[in-house]
C-alpha cells in the first residue's frame, strides 16, 4: 500500500490511495457524520491516520474531503474501509434515503427554530 501524498485530479495517484478501486460506498452521504472509534496506529496508511485524527469529533464526509484535499469518491472509499474495519462509525442523515419514514414537519420545525436563533 502506498503512503505517498497525492495530488488532486491525477487519477493514477487517486487509484493508488484507494488500492486501485473506483467503486465507492454510495450509502455514505456528503453529510454523513463520521466519528473515530480508535486512535491511529503506527504503520497505518497516512490517509487513514489523518481521518482518525480529524474525526475525534463528529465530522461530515464532505469536511473530511475538504481537509484531506481528496475528491468525494476517494474519501467514500477510504471511509468505507475504515467502517469495515470498525475504526470509525457513521451517523447517517435521516433526510437521505427514507424520506417517507421521517416525521418531516417535526424535523423542519427544529431546523426553523435553529435558524431563527442564529
Amino acid at each position: 500500500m502506498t503512503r505517498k501524498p497525492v495530488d488532486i485530479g491525477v487519477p493514477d495517484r487517486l487509484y493508488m490511495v484507494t488500492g486501485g478501486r473506483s467503486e465507492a460506498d454510495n450509502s455514505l452521504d456528503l453529510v454523513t457524520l463520521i466519528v473515530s472509534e480508535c486512535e491511529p496506529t503506527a504503520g497505518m496508511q497516512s490517509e487513514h491516520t489523518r481521518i482518525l485524527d480529524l474525526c475525534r469529533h463528529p465530522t461530515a464526509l464532505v469536511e473530511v474531503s475538504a481537509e484531506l484535499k481528496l475528491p468525494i469518491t476517494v474519501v467514500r472509499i477510504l471511509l468505507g474501509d475504515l467502517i469495515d474495519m470498525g475504526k470509525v462509525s457513521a451517523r447517517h442523515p435521516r433526510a437521505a434515503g427514507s424520506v417517507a419514514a421521517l416525521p418531516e414537519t417535526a424535523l423542519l420545525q427544529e431546523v426553523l427554530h435553529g435558524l431563527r436563533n442564529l
Partner: protein
Amino acid sequence: MGSATSEVPSQRTPLADAAEIGLKIVVVGGFGVGKTTLVRSVSEIRPLNTEEVMTQAGQGVDETAGVERKTTTTVAFDFGRISLNERMVLYLFGAPGQERFWFLWDRLFSGTLGAVVLVDTRRMADSWYAIDRLEHHKTPFVVAVNRFDDDPSRFSLDEIRQALALGDHVPMVDADARVRSSGKDVLITLVDHLYTQALSREGTQ
C-alpha cells in the same frame, strides 16, 4: 504517537460530540452571482472547498458530448456549516449552475432539504437552466434575488417572476448575500416553504 495531532489544522472548529443529524441545503446560481458570499455570511466556519471527479467510464455517451478524449470531469464546490442545535447540523453548499454539474446532482445532493436559486437580474438567463434542472429533480426551491448596488434596472419581484416563468407557488425574496441577517432570511424562507409543503402533504394522508 508524537505526531498524531500534527496534521490537524488547529483553527478547525469541531462539531458538538452529540451531533448526529447532517442536513443539506444547496445554493445554485451562475458564476459570480454571490453563492460563496451567501454561504460565508451565514456559515460558522470559513467556507471550505472540495471537488468530485467524474470518470468517463460507465457514463452515458451523451453526457460527455463535446468533450471528446477527456477522461475525467471535475466539479468543485464550496460549503459552509451551521450548527442548529447540539444534535443537528446544516451544511450549505454553493453549487455551480453549469451543465456538467447536474450529472453529479444525485451523487452529491440526493436527500437535500431544498435549494436556493440565487439570481442576478443582470444575467437572468443564467437561472433558467438551474430552475429547469431543479424541477426535473423534484427538488423544492425558493428564488433569492441578490440585489447588487450597481444594478440599474431594479426589476420588481413580480417582473422577475414573469421573466423566469415561475409559478406562484415558488417563494421569492430579495437578498443581500453579504449580510448575515439577509442570508438567514433566505434560508428561513426556504425552510418555511418546505414546512408548509410537508404540512399539506401530511394533511392529505
